[in-house]
């Protein structure tokens, strides 16, 4: 078992942080890489990009949004309990180098994945501007982390309840209009990454996105995570998870992410009903 040593709820309980004991993975993991977690014997293999690691303590951290049965099951795991299986580190690490000015754009739980990359970009000597966004103030995560990881932080909320009223793309556009940017890193919901990439293409600024398609093994064996990048098939698990945002077919990715939506709904509803009946008891 891979023990949970720290657990925190954020975003009104819709987002959960787990620090997990996994010394071998912690020793090897680099920003941008992911692990696959499986809660128990009947559990599903869920890929999550690591938010941070601490090799000395032998821990890795993941931050996930509760969206379906498997993440709802993860949420029930308490400190001292753990995951039956954790596999990694998988995928290629982020290529971090000194480029000049880098804008890191994060939405939703994507901010968790963006955070170590932002920090890395800053440490590599870049001037780093961060933009993070959420639907509403209470759903924002890791604002303080992002503030310290960057030189300049812009916060946006869709409903205007905090920071700038509007989408991250609005804030990004203002920056692109004002100054020369060498790289944009965008990590968040697929539509966000799509529109950021669309925008930066107009400005001809290289853009890196991190994808999280459906996968099973995470080692290049199943091909379930294939994405069209520049018209060619790539496996997100071994060729990614990061790709050139200007080359990714986001519409196809969104459709592929819907592959099991019916099954997910059924499974999740059943689980929630069970949970409820336990609580009633």
């Amino acid at each position: 078992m891979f023990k949970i040593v720290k657990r925190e709820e954020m975003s009104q309980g819709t987002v959960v942080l787990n620090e997990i004991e996994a010394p071998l993975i912690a020793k090897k993991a680099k920003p941008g890489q992911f692990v696959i977690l499986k809660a128990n014997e009947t559990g599903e293999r869920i890929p999550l990009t690591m938010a941070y690691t601490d090799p000395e303590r032998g821990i890795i951290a993941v931050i996930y949004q509760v969206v379906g049965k498997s993440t709802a099951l993860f949420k029930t795991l308490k400190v001292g309990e753990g995951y039956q299986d954790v596999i990694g580190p998988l995928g290629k690490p982020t290529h971090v180098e000194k480029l000049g000015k880098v804008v890191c754009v994060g939405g939703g739980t994507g901010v968790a994945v963006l955070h170590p990359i932002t920090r890395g970009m800053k440490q590599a000597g870049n001037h780093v501007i961060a933009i993070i966004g959420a639907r509403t103030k209470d759903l924002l995560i890791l604002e303080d982390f992002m503030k310290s990881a960057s030189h300049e932080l812009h916060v946006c909320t869709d409903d205007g309840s905090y920071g700038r009223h509007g989408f991250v793309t609005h804030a990004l556009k203002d920056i692109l209009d004002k100054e020369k940017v060498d790289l944009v890193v965008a990590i968040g919901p697929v539509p966000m990454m799509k529109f950021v990439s669309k925008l930066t293409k107009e400005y001809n600024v290289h853009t890196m996105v991190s994808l999280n398609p459906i996968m099973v093994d995470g080692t290049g064996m199943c091909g379930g995570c294939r994405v069209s990048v520049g018209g060619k098939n790539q496996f997100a698990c071994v060729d990614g998870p990061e790709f050139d945002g200007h080359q990714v077919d986001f519409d196809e990715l969104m459709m592929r992410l819907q592959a099991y939506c019916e099954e997910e709904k059924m499974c999740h509803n059943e689980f929630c009903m069970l949970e409820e009946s336990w609580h009633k008891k």
Partner: protein
Amino acid sequence: MSVETTAKEKKQKKSRVQMPEQEPQVRARNFFEVPTGYTPEMAKEEASRCLQCKNPGCVEGCPVGVDIPGFIKLIHEADFTKSIRHIWTMNSLPAVCGRVCPQESQCEGKCILGKKGEPVAIGNLERFAADWERANGTGALPPKAPATGKRVAVVGAGPAGLTVAGDLIQKGHDVTVFEAFHKPGGVLLYGIPEFRLPKEIVAQEVNFLERLGVKVECNSVVGRTVTLDELFEQGYQAIFLGVGAGLPKFMNIPGENLVGILSANEYLTRANLMKAYLFPKVDTPIPRGKDVVVLGGGNVAMDSARTALRLGADRVRLVYRRSREEMPARAAEAHHAEQEGIEFFLLTNPVRYLGNEKGRLVGMECIKMELGEPDASGRRRPIAVKGSEFKLDCDLCIVAVGTGANPLLTSSTPDLKLNKWGYIDTESASGKTMKKGVWAGGDIVTGSATVILAMGAGRIAANSMHAYLMRGW
């Protein structure tokens, strides 16, 4: 006429004892094993057909050299306990081999009785001995050589790796198997369906090795979690790589990323390793197509098609570009599939997939093929017949057209020498790679082959590893 000839003729006249099977209509809708096994009486009866040849062809035909007449004689004498122990000396996975080996082209293909009639059912008897031990046996382990103090790492808990582990633990070495998945078994677990090889049997065979002292480390992606050089630093003195082929091939035709098109690797891994056929009792889903097309003509294609049927498909069609004769699947597998109602669309090749506005598969366009001159594989090359395009409706397509070399491990180990297809170059007589202290075998060397050939490669490597550990490279 001598007495001996009479005896021989008598044995030839006895017909082969058929193993009982579930009825096709019944089994096509469940995941239980298709053949249900011999009773002890049936096994003794079948064993009595063996001529106990002095120079047995069957043993020559076995990639791991099991003393076939020897174990069959013990079954005939009803000494099942001794029989299985006799098999174990040459084969650590008899319950698996008895089920999935292509006996017709190996041991049984060389059986003298097969020249005039039916060969001895060697596979069925091997399966019987292993199953009998599992159900009724003492569990007593075979003898083990005294500990040598040498440490061996085996990468990949599939048929090749498990064979190496079984051989080397019996020779007294300290063996650890590293497996990337969360459970050991490799293709026996994720690839071969429950109805051909119950997963409980795989678990038992692995458990047998663990009882012998083999350590199994799951969730270890060698190349990522730990590298080969780090394993050497940790004190392993010899490493065997049996990581399998494991890179799915696709058709590379338009529309292949529509929802509803899966590699056989993904489909079977969901069904077998993740047990998605029990969804929603387990959390991993699997698409349940009503109208399913499987592309390919090998055993994996047959397994996929039969799985789709068991998952509730109304219709399953197998599209293969050559004719029945060139089909690489075992005759028995193709026969089982047809019995269950799988339709074969031979000399047919898909041209493009058709989808709806939601990006879901609704059909495919195919073209008829005819056979031309033989190609490099010796099989006649299929050529498209112009103007013969037609449409097939389907809501699920499983692509089972083979696998390539998975570069995950090899790309992180630059000093391994690879061939142009990305498979590991080895010295065939020993399984030695170009990296000192490292051997390889199975699909990562040969490309997709069979369980028993991987086991044969494991045997060769294990012998060479043992020699190295005791005497040097």
